[in-house]
């Protein structure tokens, strides 16, 4: 299981963004995952509390967008959603296809609470 290692890498990036924006806390994190990324959404969710403990992101909600496995056929150019182990064109049966979505492993966005949007005092600069 490599999800904990990936989750720690995620937290490192989120902490850097929160620091740069002088955020008080991280409200939510949205990531995009394709089935061919090799990362299991449930395992990532289980790893999150461990990886985020003691960080500015400890109370953040982890939102995972599971993205479709989508191919474009090199022969008939049809685009189709397919299972991750059957990347064959459902329209014409051609196996030479191009993956256009499904291997993403992306930090898409971070929602931050800052003193400004909370309406309070600015945090001390470091």
């Amino acid at each position: 299981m490599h999800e904990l290692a990936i989750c720690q890498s995620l937290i490192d990036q989120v902490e850097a963004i929160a620091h740069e924006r002088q955020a008080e806390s991280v409200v939510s994190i949205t990531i995009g995952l394709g089935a061919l990324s090799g990362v299991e959404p449930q395992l990532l969710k289980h790893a999150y509390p461990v990886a985020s403990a003691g960080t500015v992101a400890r109370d953040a909600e982890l939102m995972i967008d599971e993205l479709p496995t989508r191919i474009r056929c090199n022969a008939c150019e049809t685009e189709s959603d397919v299972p991750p182990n059957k990347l064959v064109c459902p329209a014409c049966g051609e196996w030479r296809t191009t993956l256009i979505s499904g291997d993403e492993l992306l930090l898409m966005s971070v929602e931050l609470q800052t003193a400004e949007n909370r309406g309070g005092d600015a945090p001390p600069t470091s």
Partner: protein
Amino acid sequence: MCNTCGCNITPGNEELIRPGGKLAKTESGNEAVTVLHSLLHENDHTASHNREHFDSHNVLAINLMSSPGAGKTALLEASIKQLDPKLRIAVIEGDLETENDAERIRKHGVKAIQIATGSACHLDAHMIHDALHNLDLSEYDVVFIENVGNLVCPASFDLGQHQNVALLSVPEGDDKPAKYPVMFRSADLVMISKTDLLPYLDDFKTERTRRYLQDIASTAPIIELSSKSGEGMSDWADWVAQQAAERRSYLEAHPVASEHKHHTHEHEHQHTHSHAHSS
């Protein structure tokens, strides 16, 4: 995928991030920051650095991946005898524990560095980077990286290699590409190993493996090989020699910038990466 030109925006995620999409603002008025970085941004950065380091010394790096026991070390031992003798080779071994595999390689007079990953189920770019501090690349033409035996995790981590090779041994069954599509999709070459066992394991059909590889749109060449009998070893040796030659021609046409050429690898790395992975 890079993180600057937007090529990581795919039809699968563009609706989420275009203006007015659901990530553009939050209902509660909090600040929403669009990032679009790979979750493995730091690993990928180090992997690129490793690749530049290999390139600056005209070294081809090949990452071998398979289940435990598929015959990666046996293949390397056989390769030492069979590969073009003009190719000077070194091996980086990844295992959870022991120096056993490195010792097997060293017995043949070949330099081997063992990485003991502890509980980590894969090699990552930082571990390779550390290993490169102990390897003078100017003495080698090909570096083989033998990844931790595992058909899942190693596929997600770029190490800085030029080519990925996945081994599937006959006793494992012919449907592994259907069960582990991420691993087999990442392979530039697939080897069906231990073919000397085919007469005893007649439910393994190499044609079925080929079909499962087509199902995941793999265009990788397939070599049927037995390190024991020697079947397929010349195809493997030819493939390695061809990759090394192609890499050399590529680097002649695209020389590495001079700051990397004189890069001693004794420099500013301050890694905070910890290896507290779960197994």
